[in-house]
């Protein structure tokens, strides 16, 4: 193992519980609970150049992490390296050298992870008034869709609020979602709060649960396309 990062925050609902691990051979694996790329399992392999960059970031730090106190409202972030064991990096801001660089690299790997879905469900916005759950991976995943909390937020311009809609939708209950599985949900936003006039960007979240054996894990799939700065 080259590194493992776990970010956890029980104050959120669903709780944030994210992990990413990079193996010596460049294998990348982990779990996302709240993500744009989907919630679930991810696994893949980093290209050699990226792996080298990760190795360089790890090798650039000393064996002792700086003790930087976390700011108010921070989540728990624990980075594990062979050389250091588990260290808290919650107080270390992203940077370009040393531990700040390594912290940024590790956090970035959580986003990179979502390029390798194994069994993960995302949400998209294929058409006005529709939110679509999509299974992105090749492995099946069991879902509890008995109650799906959907929220749509509309933005105008550069993140100026233009409407907000939420509802808890009764879904089909427990399902096994195989590759290519989709499930559409009706949104009340475009018809009510924000007309789809092309100037509005809609962000979505869908809260449901993934079943892992006997464990039910609340998760959130997000769809938050970036809005370019003015």
């Amino acid at each position: 193992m080259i590194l493992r990062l776990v970010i956890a925050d029980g104050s959120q609902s669903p709780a944030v519980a994210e992990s990413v691990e990079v193996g010596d051979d460049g294998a990348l694996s982990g779990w996302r609970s709240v993500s744009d790329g989907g919630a679930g399992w991810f696994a893949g392999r980093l290209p050699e150049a990226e792996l080298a960059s990760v190795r360089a970031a790890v090798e650039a730090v000393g064996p002792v992490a700086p003790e930087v106190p976390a700011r108010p409202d921070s989540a728990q972030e624990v980075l594990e390296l062979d050389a250091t064991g588990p260290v808290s990096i919650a107080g270390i801001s992203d940077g370009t050298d040393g531990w700040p660089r390594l912290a940024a690299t590790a956090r970035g790997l959580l986003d990179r992870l979502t390029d390798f879905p194994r069994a993960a469900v995302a949400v998209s916005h294929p058409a006005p008034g529709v939110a679509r759950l999509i299974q992105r991976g090749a492995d099946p995943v069991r879902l509890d869709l008995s109650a799906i909390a959907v929220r749509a937020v509309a933005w105008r311009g550069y993140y100026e609020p233009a409407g907000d809609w939420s509802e808890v939708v009764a879904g089909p209950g427990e399902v096994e979602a195989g590759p290519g599985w989709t499930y559409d949900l009706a949104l009340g936003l475009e018809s009510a709060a924000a007309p789809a006039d092309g100037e509005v960007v809609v962000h979505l979240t869908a809260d449901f649960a993934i079943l892992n054996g006997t464990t039910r894990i609340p998760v959130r799939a997000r769809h938050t396309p970036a809005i370019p700065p003015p």
Partner: protein
Amino acid sequence: MPEASDERTRPVPRPLNVREPDPDTAGPIMTPGVGNAALARMIQRSPSGPAALPDLAMFGGNAQIARLVEGDSEPPAPGGGGAAPAPAGLGGGAHGEEVRDAQLKLSRVQASAQPLTEDGRYGPLTEAAVRTFQTSQGIAPVTGVLDPGTKARLDAAFAALPPPARTVLSLGATGPDVGFAQQKLNALGASPRLAINAVYDGAMWVAVIKYEFGTLNRFPTGVVDAAMWAALDAGVRGGFIAPEGQSATPVEQKTNSGTADSLGTQVAGTSLHPVTGVGGLTQGPAVKELQQKLNTAGAAPALKVDGSFGPLTRTALQAFQTSRVPPLPGTGTADKATWDALDTVAPGSMTGAVERQWTEEVGGHTYSMVGASASRYSWEILPTKMQVTVKVNFVGLPAPGSWFGFVEAVWNQYMGVDSVSGKKMPVDFRMTRGSGGDAMTVQVKPGTGRANAGEWFVADANAASTIPHEFGHLIGLQDEYQLHPGDYVRVTGHEPPVGDTAGAGLVAATVAANLRAAIMARSSANALAASNTAGVTGGAFAQQVVEEYRKLGPGTVPAVAAVPGPPPVPAQPAVALTGELLHDLDVALPNDSDRYETIQTFSYSSGSIMGDPGRVNDPHDHGTQPRHIAEFMAILGRALGGTWEAKRR
């Protein structure tokens, strides 16, 4: 900040509602102490045995008693004062303290449908409550306007509300009235402070004896009887449960415990001033403050207060430094020692800058804003208002324009009022873009996520509350959720609520033992099962559990390897348990929902913008509160003289 409740997927125990106390509180009755013979008898009969001796031995001699009574019985900080004259009538769109006062009374006389949010805004719910009140009183015509006649009738109806029925309490008693008595004894100066555990134990017995002895001037009985209740209720208001609104919603009336300090705990040895001058800030409000204070200290020739640290300012600063006794090094740098000296000579100024290094403990975990992350803000007293500015260097993505409006919508609610002159000074807060040594740095990240004081998310759908909360940290305010009782009192200025006293019939020691077992097993699910799921909710019984847990003492939880999950859990080193429940839950358990909800039960949270409005639905302590801008009232006092209080605009 904790996420709002509208996105929660699990039911959250609803805390007992609480209400702010009436602002005017009477002080205790001051009477001389009694003799040493009586003291000796009481010590012999102390139920706490030798443990009580240090407390009761303090009564040796009447002179000491008199001093103790003065020290222990300090009344709460006076509220009110400076009230504006009665208006001709308040109606839709009106705002201010009188509206807030009317909202409180309309709820208590059960004219509103539900307890009214005391926001000082005369909206439709307030108007409807006035109509209901007018109808019930036979006032015609029914206008929904709080005219002088209606107001007088409302005041009379409120004054005629029956006093709370009190239970006579003696050693061993339990129940809500014990908790309320503990609140009042604390508010009236009990030292050490009593835990609000609703158990009349030895510690409370000592406090009761001291109060009887010192304040009631009677031979101590150890019984909280009608006379003592009368004194406690006269000494500090609140401390009972009243039905509010036509819904008769039971609302715990808060017990004011004195002046609140909502700021984070300043790091010892640090200055509240940024280093200014050579090697420090050379432009801006800090330099203006320096120039003003040097002028007050006698700079000759007087400096132009232009906020630019030039040769004249440097020379004046060096002259000030070297003229101290003993002299300070003439460095031309206004460091802590120099600012301390300047503040002594010139306490007030019309503009200034703050750099606050502070820490807080939330949920048993310590967070900080120190060093480069220290809170930095400036203020200026203008002819018609006080302007507080936080300059933020946004890095990463640009900050959306709406964020700036969110800050002003939430924070620009108050004005300072000088209780002597009646002078009013609105206090406006603003967040601006900028950089430099006097700016805060906030990283703006893409998408959504959990904001903290230094990282905000550009697509945060809850930004209207998230950004004002984080802005509060930028002006040095600490969080008001998951606090220890002592921190809760300091931060909010009122006693922890009594809440649930029964604990669903559970035995506190058993709950504590089960929690310890869950902690040793690092199982947050077991911790939640031992507490919340078993029926423990926040309040006095939960504090009994905290005390029983403390008796279990220290321990060690072995290290554990990472658990891949899902959900994943990071590797954890061995941790030392202290017996302090919040700390032990925090260090030993995974940071998940079960841990968070367990900690919530054994701690205290406000419903204000700095608290946890998603979990604490408190219409009487919400949004920004006067306590949040107390620092700026003190600044007004130093600069303009008088005693300034924050009032709703």
